[in-house]
């Protein structure tokens, strides 16, 4: 079974505009009777605050549970792009408190009315279970003012903290949750979202149906659109199984491997293929601890010039669909400077690689680097990199560690020289940088890769504070070209295949918003599985 891939998608175009345009004429008749989809997952949990990171939970979390507000695209903030769902109005009182006015007609699929005290219960319960790191970092408490008004207190004034807590906390009725049996919570919950759960077969399939009695009627956010009557998600963790299911007419929509896309679906007209960049970027990060060879910038630059990203991807993953990115943060956030993409960014240059290697004082094959990697990850890309470094006279030893053991070695400053890493970008590039390099976060470790560089910290503070173009560019130039602490590699692209008749798969911040898909008349759904 492949490693458990963490599926996340970045929306590039502005969703809000298009959805308003379409929504105006959608009558209550459904565009499609049903949608069956195969997910690369084998365990899910429909209860409100479970943090199962699988593809199924990703799809369902916002559809069956309402949230105060949702983030339709990366970087959306309250007042600039975020859509209010349960909340009618959110205003910031001061750095640590926010006033939230709720809609007054919120009900769940079992008829319980949702009030401010239910919202408080939901946040407290989520905090207590502690499955969401963001919620535990930023949520402090909620003060209930009236049935439809509450004051939300955050722990820190960090930008985006409130938003992270809000988008990760499902809201459900306290009365129902405390009285429901474990079986009911897991199989037949009282859903507050636009859809409710009708059938669960643990580990195999889950079916949700649009709620006729959904409480919101006016302008509806993307997660509340009801274009499809019934959605069924089947768990198929085998690549082949999903592509076979598509061809056999067992499912309408599924993610497939590049090879299946290239050989079967690319030129088959009764399928539509969508290429969505993978949420998790890939970056090459150097260990700047004095104990490592890579503390010398020349070594870092030699390696960066020796690696040819195109070859690594073409041969390593065997497909040509990827986006090279010119910063360690993918180009999906508002504060990303698009001019970076035109820079000549460490594309392969053997002469420079050798030149920097000699500048660092190493002859042919004298420079030996230890590259650590998770055993479960596909090894081919690193084998290709090894070959390329060898051509520049640099010896790269690949050490594989079991996934669970990997982090302990990654945290040990003396155990590695360079490796591939990556992280979630939630709102802004500046925040993404600070999670990697800011000293406040890492204390005396300095940064994720043990950097102790005052200038770096100074430039970082400026960029985070203003997010102006020249501050962002100053930090980018310094850490990439002057010091080469870490370089962006590529963003894998995932392939989603939909049957003919599915016009647009309505991409959400990190996944397709299933019930907001648009269908044409010649969409013939496959039968639901019993």
């Amino acid at each position, binding site marked *: *079974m*492949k*490693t458990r891939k963490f599926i996340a998608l970045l929306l590039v175009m502005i969703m809000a505009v298009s959805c308003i345009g379409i929504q105006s004429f959608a009558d209550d008749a459904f565009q499609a009777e049903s949608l069956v989809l195969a997910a690369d997952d084998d365990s899910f949990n429909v209860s409100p605050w479970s943090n199962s990171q699988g593809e199924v939970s990703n799809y369902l979390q916002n559809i069956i549970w309402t949230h105060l507000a949702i983030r339709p695209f990366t970087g959306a903030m309250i007042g600039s792009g975020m859509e209010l769902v349960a909340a009618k109005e959110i205003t910031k009182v001061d750095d640590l408190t926010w006033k939230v006015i709720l809609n007054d007609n919120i009900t769940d699929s079992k008829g319980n009315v949702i009030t401010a005290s239910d919202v408080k219960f939901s946040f407290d319960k989520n905090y207590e279970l502690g499955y969401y790191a963001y919620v535990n970092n930023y949520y402090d408490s909620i003060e209930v003012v009236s049935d439809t008004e509450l004051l939300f207190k955050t722990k820190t004034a960090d930008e985006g903290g409130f938003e992270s807590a809000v988008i990760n906390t499902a809201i459900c009725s306290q009365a129902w949750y405390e009285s429901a049996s474990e079986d009911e919570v897991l199989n037949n919950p009282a859903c507050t979202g636009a859809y409710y759960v009708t059938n669960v077969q643990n580990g195999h399939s889950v079916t949700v149906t649009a709620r006729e009695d959904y409480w919101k009627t006016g302008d509806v956010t993307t997660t509340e659109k009801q274009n499809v009557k019934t959605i069924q998600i089947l768990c198929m963790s085998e*690549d*082949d199984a999903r*592509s*076979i299911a598509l061809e056999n007419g067992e499912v309408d929509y599924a993610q497939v*491997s590049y*090879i*299946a896309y290239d*050989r079967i679906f690319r030129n088959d007209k009764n399928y539509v293929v969508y290429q969505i960049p993978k949420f998790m970027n890939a970056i090459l990060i150097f260990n700047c601890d004095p104990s490592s060879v890579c503390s010398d910038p020349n070594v870092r630059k030699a390696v960066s010039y020796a690696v040819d990203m195109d*070859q690594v991807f*073409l*041969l390593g993953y*065997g497909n040509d669909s990827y986006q090279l990115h010119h910063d360690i943060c993918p180009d999906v956030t508002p504060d990303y400077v698009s001019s970076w993409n035109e820079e000549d960014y460490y594309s392969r240059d053997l002469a420079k690689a050798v030149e920097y290697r000699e500048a660092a004082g190493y002859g042919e094959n004298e420079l030996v680097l230890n590259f650590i990697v998770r*055993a*479960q990850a*596909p*090894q*081919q890309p690193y*084998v*290709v990199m090894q*070959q390329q470094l060898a051509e520049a006279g640099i010896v790269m030893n690949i050490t*594989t*560690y*079991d996934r669970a*053991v990997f982090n302990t070695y990654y945290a040990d400053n003396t155990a590695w020289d360079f490796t591939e890493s990556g992280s979630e970008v939630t709102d802004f590039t500046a925040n993404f940088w600070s999670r990697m390099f800011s000293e406040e976060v890492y204390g005396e470790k300095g940064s994720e890769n043990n950097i102790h560089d005052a200038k770096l910290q100074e430039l970082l503070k400026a960029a985070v504070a203003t997010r102006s173009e020249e501050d962002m560019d100053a930090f980018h130039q310094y850490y990439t070209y002057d010091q080469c602490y870490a370089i962006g590699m590529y963003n894998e692209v995932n392939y989603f295949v939909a049957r003919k008749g599915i016009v647009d798969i309505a991409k959400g911040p990190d996944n397709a918003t299933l019930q907001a898909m648009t269908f044409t008349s010649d969409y013939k759904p496959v039968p639901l599985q019993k």
Partner: protein
Amino acid sequence: MVSIKIVMKTKKTDTSNLKPGSLKYVWRRLLKNKSAVFGLTVVVTLMVLSLLSPYICRYDYKSMDALNAYSVPTAQHLLGCDELGRDILSRVLYGARYTFIIGILSTAIAAVLGIAMGAAAGYFGGVVDSILMRFLDIFQSFPMLILAMAFCAVFGTGIDKCILALGISNISGFARLMRANILRIRNMEYVEAATSIGCPTGRIITSHVIPNAISPIIVEIAMGISRNGLASSSLSFLGLGVQQPTPEWGAMLSSARSYIRYYPHMVIIPGLFILITVLSFNLIGDAVRDILDPTLKE
């Protein structure tokens, strides 16, 4: 009265003067069994080819060649290439050694530990026996693969861990076999006679008990090697055994799995080699069992 023609003395076949169960007897009879000979030749040729593969194969098993990645078997690459353009023939031949090493070493570990445990439990009986048996029951209650997986989870992946995992999860087979044999032999008269004339227990075990128990052990070893060869490929398939880029057959199969529909040769070829090797060991094991347990063969 019909006169009976004079009966010629038939040439004494050379095995009848050997003590049934002795190794020479088994070896001589083995050579007469067609399927066993087939099994032996396959095993030996694979071992030799594997050792010679770096020299006789046109391509090194590690060198990549982007141009004919996934290539189907051609004149150049007799068995085609894998997703990185590496020659499958040289990888498969070179990789044979891993299956043998893992199969043989893990069975050896299991045999040594298993026999010691079984002998102790069988011979001393009483408390020792029940403790060991309870211990084996616990082992027995897990399927071998789950036990090996848990072991890899605890001690990590890689060839050495894989060998240890398979070795330890096979102990109970040998232990039970040895214990059953010892119990059967122990109350045979000649062992009672030996103890009655006061010869030390150690010598009894080595001179009387083990030689007689050796025959079923040989069968279990042959079967163990084939079972472990198969299990190591399953472990690598689940990502817990041998890691890439080592050309172990199971790992090759696992990495080629997502291409099975488009480039089936990448999956079929290693699978076939696993099949042939395991089949050969099974044939050898069967033949040895039939020789040592005549009722089966007649």
